[in-house]
């Protein structure tokens, strides 16, 4: 019978095929000899261009392919000179940047002043709609390149950038900014070679960088990105491994299983499911340290002044939250109680800065809450986006407020983060809301201005529309400081104002957890959760 015979053939073919592949056990030889390893990555969003990358996965690869003017110390997060020989200013407004000799792009082209100017002009031009565009807004002339909606740029070059000599250029800012040097380690400020201009899109698939690693082939979408050591990189900082494969996963649990089976060597973010057992399984090869994120309960000061306008009410809410319990029981220790608006990893953080009002004290919370007259209707809402694992902690906070303040608190889920922002922007939503911030560059300033300044109402994350002239004035003074250390003191003064006013309530800071296999050593993860791959060695 026809059907039966063909079925037999098909079955036979499958068995033969299975047997054949079984014999040729092709061993993935990553991590053996030759100094090649495989690490986990998520699919980057855009083409690999520093000016157009604002998410962590693309930044991870760019970090291997590019070296910026400065880079951040893995321990202290202070900016250290990298490609820059010196970065000098006398007024924090005009900056003179000298470039070291010896850095070349992977195609041999010299890294000179022009390669930075080229990259920044491209990023600042709104026609390119690059995600990093806001980073150039401090530079003089940026408004002409990005005049806004329905307008055309009137210039092609930032007038604040001037090439002085092959190795020197100056940057003039619109206004003084004492922390400008710290900003320069962010990937929007990476240089670009001439070859970029010919075809930016193609460049993004196989970027020609100036970093310790160069592309090995092109980006194999959704599968892997391979890089290999760049041998002409300056001797200090040259990569020790000969190659790294970024294997693309969209599921951390799978990546973790691959790490346990030693199919990959480093996993720089662990799935929640691993937290309970990872320290036993990996011991010293498990890295657990604070990272840049801070989680808040945001308060709609402008949208709902009747409820949240009174300082005592905000203080009471803050004191009624048991931060310790949330970090331990809900996040398995992957979050630590927040005690400052500034993240613990950034210079300028002060332990316990929040003081009394950041410490769990339900009795006192209730007392001042009632003294202030409570809130209208004795109820409030707590909004969150349901797509990011926030349900549990928001419900816990809602319960704590309910118990400790004796009010009705409902957790209100939004499908997406953007929906909640839309409602807040239109004053349609008047409840408290979950919020988080992670830094762009390790400066105290980056935890204040983008969230609490007036300009951040439109361009940043000031969703409660907090306005305070005193804060603005101190921030301006800090920007104008001649010396970064002096600036830092003033930013702390601005931080004190925010701590006093509590426009948001900091709840926890994020912890990063990573693990690596026995076959590698010298694994370090920086504050932005990126692996320092140039230092990694086989053990």
């Amino acid at each position: 019978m026809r059907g039966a015979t063909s079925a037999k053939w098909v079955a036979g073919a499958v068995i033969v095929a299975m047997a054949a592949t079984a014999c040729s056990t092709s061993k993935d030889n990553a991590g053996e000899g030759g100094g090649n390893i495989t690490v986990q990555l998520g699919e980057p969003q855009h083409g690999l261009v520093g000016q157009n990358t604002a998410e962590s996965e693309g930044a991870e690869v760019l970090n291997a392919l590019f070296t910026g003017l400065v880079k951040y110390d893995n321990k202290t997060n202070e900016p250290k000179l990298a490609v820059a020989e010196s970065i000098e200013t006398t007024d924090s407004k005009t900056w003179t940047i000298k470039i070291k000799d010896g850095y070349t792009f992977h195609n041999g082209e010299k890294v000179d002043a022009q390669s930075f100017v080229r990259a920044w002009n491209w990023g600042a031009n709104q026609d390119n709609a690059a995600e990093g565009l806001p980073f150039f807004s401090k530079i003089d002339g940026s408004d002409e390149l990005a005049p806004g909606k329905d307008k055309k740029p009137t210039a092609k070059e930032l007038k604040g950038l001037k090439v002085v000599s092959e190795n020197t250029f100056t940057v003039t800012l619109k206004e003084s900014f004492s922390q400008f040097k710290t900003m320069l380690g962010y990937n929007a400020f990476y240089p670009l070679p001439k070859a970029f201009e010919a075809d930016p899109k193609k460049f993004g698939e196989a970027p020609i960088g100036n970093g310790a690693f160069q592309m090995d082939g092109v980006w194999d979408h959704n599968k892997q990105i391979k890089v290999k050591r760049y041998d002409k990189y300056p001797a200090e900082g040259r990569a020790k491994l000969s190659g790294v494969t970024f294997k693309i996963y969209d599921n951390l649990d799978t990546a973790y299983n691959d790490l346990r089976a030693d199919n990959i060597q480093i996993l720089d973010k662990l799935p929640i499911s691993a937290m309970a057992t990872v320290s036993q399984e990996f011991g010293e090869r498990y890295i657990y340290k604070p990272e840049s994120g801070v989680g808040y309960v945001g308060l709609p000061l402008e949208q709902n002044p009747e409820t949240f306008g009174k300082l005592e009410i905000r203080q009471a809410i803050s004191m009624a939250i048991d931060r310790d319990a949330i970090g331990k029981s809900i996040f398995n220790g992957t979050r630590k109680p927040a005690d400052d608006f500034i993240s613990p990893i950034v210079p300028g953080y002060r332990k316990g800065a929040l003081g009394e009002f950041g410490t769990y004290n339900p009795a006192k919370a209730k007392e001042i809450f009632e003294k202030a007259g409570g809130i209208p209707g004795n109820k409030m809402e707590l909004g969150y986006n349901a797509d990011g694992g926030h349900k549990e902690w928001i419900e816990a906070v809602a319960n704590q407020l309910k118990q400790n303040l004796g009010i009705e608190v409902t957790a209100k889920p939004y499908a997406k983060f953007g929906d909640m922002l839309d409602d807040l922007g239109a004053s349609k939503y008047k409840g408290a809301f979950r919020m988080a911030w992670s830094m762009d560059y390790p400066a105290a300033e980056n935890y204040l201005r983008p969230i609490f300044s007036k300009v951040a109402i439109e361009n940043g994350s000031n969703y409660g529309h907090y306005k305070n002239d005193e804060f603005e004035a101190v921030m301006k003074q800090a920007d104008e400081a001649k010396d970064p250390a002096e600036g830092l003191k003033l930013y702390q003064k601005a931080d004190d104002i925010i701590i006093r006013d509590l426009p948001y309530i900091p709840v926890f800071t994020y912890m990063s957890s990573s693990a690596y296999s026995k076959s590698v050593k010298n694994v370090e993860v920086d504050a932005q959760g990126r692996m320092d791959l140039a230092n990694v060695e086989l053990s």
Partner: protein
Amino acid sequence: MGRYLIRRLVQAIPVLLGATFLIYWLAFKLPGDPIQALAGEKKADPIVAAMLREKYHLNDSFLSQYWNYITNLFQGNFGETLTGRSVWDKITEAFPYTMNLAIIAFLIEAVVGVLAGIMAALRRGKFLDQLVLLSTLLVISIPVFVSGFILQLTLGVQLKKSWGIDFFSVSFNENDGIRAYLLPALVLASTSLAYVARLTRTSMMETMRADYVRTATAKGLPRRRVVGNHALRNALIPIVTFLGADLGALMGGAVITEKIFNIHGIGGLLAESVYRKEGTVIVGVVSLLIIVYLVANLIVDLLYAVLDPRIRYA
């Protein structure tokens, strides 16, 4: 038969057109702002957002966006994602993996399922029959994500760590060829396999009781011929119907399996596009799935005549 085939294919055109319209409309109606989704947890920069909205015509009305899409489509242009990648590239990257996975799962399901069903039917009430019934019940009641993770952990991780056997990969690795698909295909096939086995068992039992089978046996035909030519052929009709519909379901329903084993196929692409509200990708992928369904159904209908010559097409 030729005319029938042509008519069926012509009928597929309005189905496809209607479907793309509906899907595009549904994608358009998905809540959320795709540009904000792109920016993640930070607020999208107003200037960048405005430029992107203009570039991708996001401010236009639904009909104008759809018209734009469909005219491009007829010129063979599937459009671009909001991050500037060609939708066609994305689909052709993902499609082969899902196709391979579905076909291997389909083969496992068809061969093992039908064989198990036949054996159970021929040994009704005996140990083998009980075994098939029990094991299929077990498979049906365990959700795919549980069985997937358990198999990944035991066969992928533990086997390598404790025994040094590196046969089943934890995550998909292209260099492993067919071997890389085995575990995921088995997981993907498991539930349908159980249904096929049970369906075959019932269907076979019924035909084995039919008069013509008794006649064939009485004529003294060898048992192989009775079972193979007389009983099985008739029993196969409902099974083929199920398998045909299931091929489409396997392709569209592989989301969880693909995710567990890190296969970047159609399922993940679709899920990601719905999350990002990328209408152009959603429509492209779903249209492709519709074509698979239509073709699978057509093949099923044509197979009826092969199995039972009394069935004629008009």
